């Protein structure tokens, strides 16, 4: 079972955190700090797995963003790597060429998509179509109401950074 998933930037900024085991806020912060540091210190060609405490860490970098999962001893590293990839695909499909900024500004969507895909640390639905269908159905439920609002959604951001480069483009 996956214990938690963290998304953080190359600068070490936490973009998304999902915990599947109950931990105190203090403990969560400590783990995050420790892992961000450990993973960022690793060189590009190194292997995607490492032992950490009594867990296995599986991580992969997409453009400016690191996806990092903690799994248990008997869990499968390679399939976890593909869980990460499938999640990135889902985000990409939903946002259309997703970049880090999408996740920053629409963090709640990133959580909703994750909940459709993984629940309680286990894969719930691995079909891309089915997950997106669930999310889009939900979006439709308020499409009419929020149509007006969407017109104002675009806010220009100065200083575009690497955060705007698509996760699949690096």
């Amino acid at each position, binding site marked *: 079972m996956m214990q938690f998933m963290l998304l953080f930037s190359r600068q070490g900024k936490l973009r998304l955190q999902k915990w599947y085991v109950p931990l105190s806020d203090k403990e969560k912060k400590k783990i995050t700090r420790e892992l961000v540091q450990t993973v960022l210190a690793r060189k590009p060609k*190194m292997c995607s797995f490492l*032992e950490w405490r009594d867990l296995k860490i599986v991580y992969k970098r997409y453009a400016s963003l690191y996806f990092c999962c903690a799994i248990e001893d008997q869990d499968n590293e390679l*399939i976890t790597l*593909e869980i990460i990839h499938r999640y990135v695909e889902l985000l990409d499909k939903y946002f259309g060429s997703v970049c880090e900024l999408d996740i920053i*500004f629409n963090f709640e969507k990133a*959580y909703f998509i994750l909940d459709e895909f993984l629940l*309680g640390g286990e894969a719930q639905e*691995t079909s891309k179509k089915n997950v997106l269908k669930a999310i889009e159905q939900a979006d439709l*439920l308020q499409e009419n109401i929020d149509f007006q*609002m969407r017109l104002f959604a675009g806010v220009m951001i100065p200083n575009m950074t690497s955060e705007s480069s698509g996760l699949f483009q690096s």
Partner: protein
Amino acid sequence: MPAVSKGDGMRGLAVFISDIRNCKSKEAEIKRINKELANIRSKFKGDKALDGYSKKKYVCKLLFIFLLGHDIDFGHMEAVNLLSSNKYTEKQIGYLFISVLVNSNSELIRLINNAIKNDLSSRNPTFMCLALHCIANVGSREMAEAFASEIPRILVAGDTMDSVKQSAALCLLRLYKTSPDLVLMGEWTSRVVHLLNDQHMGVVTAAISLITCLSQKNPDEFKTCVSLAVSRLSRIVSSASTDLQDYTYYFVPAPWLSCKLLRLLQCYPPPEDGAVKGRLVECLETILNKAQEPPKSKKVQHSNAKNAILFEAISLIIHYDSEPNLLVRACNQLGQFLQHRETNLRYLALESMCTLASSEFSHEAVKTHIETVINALKTERDVSVRQRAADLLYAMCDRSNAKQIVAEMLSYLETADYSIREEMVLKVAILAEKYAVDYSWYVDTILNLIRIAGDYVSEEVWYRVIQIVINRDDVQGYAAKTVFEALQAPACHENMVKVGGYILGEFGNLIAGDPRSSPLVQFNLLHSKFHLCSVPTRALLLSAYIKFINLFPETKATIQEVLRCDSQIRNSDVELQQRAVEYLKLSSIASTDVLATVLEEMPPFPERESSILAKLKKKKGPGAVSVTELEDGKREGGELNGGSDRGPDAAAMAASNASTPSPSADLLGIRSTAPVNTAPPSTGSLLVDVFSEAGPAAPSAAVNDDGFLRDLEQPTETSDPLLVEGSGDSDSAPPSEDPAPPLSEADELLEKFVCKNNGVLFENQLLQIGIKSEYRQNLGRMYLFYGNKTSVQFASFSTTVSCPGELQSELNVQSKPVEPLVEGGAQIQQVLNIECLTDFSDAPLLNIKFRYGGALQNLTLKLPVTINKFFQPTEMASQDFFQRWKQLSQPQQEAQKIFKANHGMDTEVIKAKLLGLGMALLDNVDPNPENYVCAGVIQTKGQQVGCLLRLEPNAQAQMYRLTLRCSKDSVSRRLCELLAQQF
């Protein structure tokens, strides 16, 4: 800004996030956040009711602030309000806030649970899923209490939508993990298993995680899942890459589901049904075959998904450990991966091979890859991969390749990463010891270890080399020579000085014949390191010096001078000062004989579990130690004397019984286990001991109390069973020899227990037997404690209780069989149930047989079950007593003995014994206050026997007269016999 903002854009939120991102400093960010918090607070508190959209926006902002790492202490109520909104997004944000910021405020929990309950019963699948996600995300006990019975119903209901089933399955899994006691098994469980057959792959994918977890806890209840899982797996594995449509991932059919199915099967042994098993083996073969096929895509996702299944299949093959063909194929496949260009695959192959190495079927196949693995250790750029390679080398090591592997690990140590050095050192030390063919190689290896990685050599490691050198006299001369040479290096590690000091102090004489290592040269070499060392090492060196004075009288003057100098005798450290003072005094006043006795060579250490192994076990590195090596736990605290329930007299008994008090026991801090070899330590075999006049010295118990030599004190845990090849006697059949006749002292031992119920019955060099017993009416229960005093396992341990001759019909003794293995230092317990049918004279026999180091031990004792154990005390007045006394006036009813006192005639002791006998001791009955009078009734199954006793001491003559009158004459005689020995 992202090109698309789907769904509901919240402009205010986007602006706020932009603001935060534009903050140039942490302070600016905090300022902006505080401003926002104030704003939100005022909105929430304001008189104007907020619309749903605003509420959602502010709650979302709070969530964002929280996720930035700031504390949020309000807004929970607004979030709970959102839960009951009809608008999906508002509800969704409310649930997200609750999931992330759950607060165990009871009032709130009640409201949340209410909202969830409404959504669960709404029959709107989207709402139901939201509610289930929330339960799964929070997973608190309160939620389990509220929903643990509801969710199984949703899960198995016929009309539940697929997406809801998926969420319900994983939601239930989460609740089961947090509160297994609240999720009750029931009718639903059998229907859950059948979800493995569901048409919807997503439902199967979700349900199987739940089934796996439930199967681990209740394997029997779920065992039908095995055949279902096999047929599902078989269908997936044999399907074409496009059959499963969207569940095909980069040309791999349903990789997640396949992995989960293989994982579920690992909860069970191989299927018993031949057809099911055949089908499964076919699947596993197909998976192995597919690994050899050319990839259908160049994408890494394709190979990852394919190999994920392959590794899971290999895990299952290893789990079964019964298909040699599959095991070897798995090993070959992993061998290919060892040289793969993907680092991830090399890492996993090394890891997986580690477990294969411990299977007897594949151990040899794994060994063929040794060169590749050594190469990986040398050339891998990633430390975590090198670590795996080191683990695998350790796992594949056996006698045939130990020298090569140890050499490679040693050379790797020179450049190894700091993070893994300590573990590497432990592994090298263990392998060197385990596979040492000649001990000079072992000594070389450990000294090299100290040279290369001295800082990482823990105490256990250097203790261990000393234990082994002490216990093996064929290596002592070599060890002295080697350590002497190693100490000559200009800079040598402090651990080397410790080992050097200890070994030269014990065995320096073996190399003293060579003028290049004459006593004085040895001493000067050691002393040249003295000032650079820490206090504990210096203390050890001081002890080595005093040992030198004994070994080499010619060094006495030099050493005394060193001890006498201010830096020793006035050292600010108490320990050093005390040693200097004591050693100086000892060397000046003691005669050579006394000196030789006090400073005698250390006796061999008892063989015990390697402390290094224990340490590695604690570190719990992956593949650190294979399980079989570690089976020997529970070694300590086995002996009876340490038992908490013994009576004080038992302790005294044990102390006086200890046949060979081990002179070294206390000194060495070894838990009172006597050394196995109490033979006098062999003196140096290479050279004539200078002090051969000392001869084999008597145990030096007298001086032990002084605390001298305390630091030559050895590690409390010692040697291991690993070296004792073949001592693990495998024949488990009980020895067939006839029981030995009772020991000559069996009667004596029995007599000790006439007046007491607890204590040590028997003790020799190997075995200690303790007894605790209690009696009520005609029934008794006896606990026997067999303690293995050695460090070697007793095999084929068996005990038999028998009632010889007539006793068979008089006494009924039932015993449960004991465990056939008694580990070194361990204690096992046996319970006997005893029933007294009628009065009896003989004692039941206890025969014990076991193999110790191959030799059969066979001994028979008398069990201290005597007729008086079934006494009920009877209080009575003087008049009654004499009336009954007179009633029992027939000559055969009385038994009398006049005998000389065997023990002192102390009143209190006599009284205690009479009370221990089980009768009532009556005061003011006998006209002569010096006399003792007792009354009691013996309870047997058939009858009660009244007994009266009178004991008349004559202090002057040191004589007693004992008179017994019982309603049954045989009882009078037996009691009289028994008691005459007691006073």
